[in-house]
């Protein structure tokens, strides 16, 4: 298995672990009903902290992965993205974007049918997570099966 394939798998697992652990951490703080402003405050901080937590965790996991890769394979990781990498990135971004847009439209649809705003935020955040996962799966698929 090549560096890019391993990296896609690590990225997929870390996305699931980061999102899962963060949701478990935030679950007890979930506002039960209450004022609309409290709901917005909760979900606003949820998204901002998740973004920060996710960036830091991804950087740390990436550093650890590169160290482990160098030790186990005695190979250096590629320092640049060539035309194949860029093409696969584009396909991954396209699929990722498509999943997020579907989620975004569903979230807006939930407001149209007078669902609570909590549901809209949950759909939106789930769509963000699924789009991240879709991007990693697309990369893994194309690195293994070709473009």
């Amino acid at each position: 298995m090549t560096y890019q394939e391993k990296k896609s798998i690590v990225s997929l697992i870390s996305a699931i672990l980061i999102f899962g652990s963060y949701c478990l951490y935030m679950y007890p703080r979930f506002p039960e009903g209450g004022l609309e402003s409290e709901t917005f405050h909760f979900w606003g901080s949820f998204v901002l902290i998740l973004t920060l937590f996710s960036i830091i965790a991804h950087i740390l996991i990436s550093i650890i992965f590169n160290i482990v890769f160098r030790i186990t394979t005695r190979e250096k990781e590629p320092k640049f993205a060539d035309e194949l990498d860029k093409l696969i990135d584009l396909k991954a971004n396209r699929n990722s974007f498509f999943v997020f847009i579907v989620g975004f439209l569903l979230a807006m649809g939930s407001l149209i049918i007078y669902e609570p705003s909590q549901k809209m935020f949950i759909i939106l955040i789930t769509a963000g997570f699924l789009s991240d996962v879709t991007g990693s799966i697309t990369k893994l698929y194309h690195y293994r099966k070709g473009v």
Partner: protein
Amino acid sequence: MSKKLVGNHIRKLRFNHDEMTQQQLADKVGVTRQTIVALEKGNYSPSLELAFRIAHAFNLPLEEVFFYGDNTKL
């Protein structure tokens, strides 16, 4: 995913050129080893520019490195 119609003789040519490694060829043409692996497996059709760079690396014309359709002769 279906195999591409653009095939190549890169693997054979590497061996005919002092058993050049995939990494050495990758360094010569400015791509990652993963891309050379994908090319040899027939999982990726390179850009015209990369195809020319690979042909130049072997000092051969393009059509002796790449072929269109089912042509496995060298």
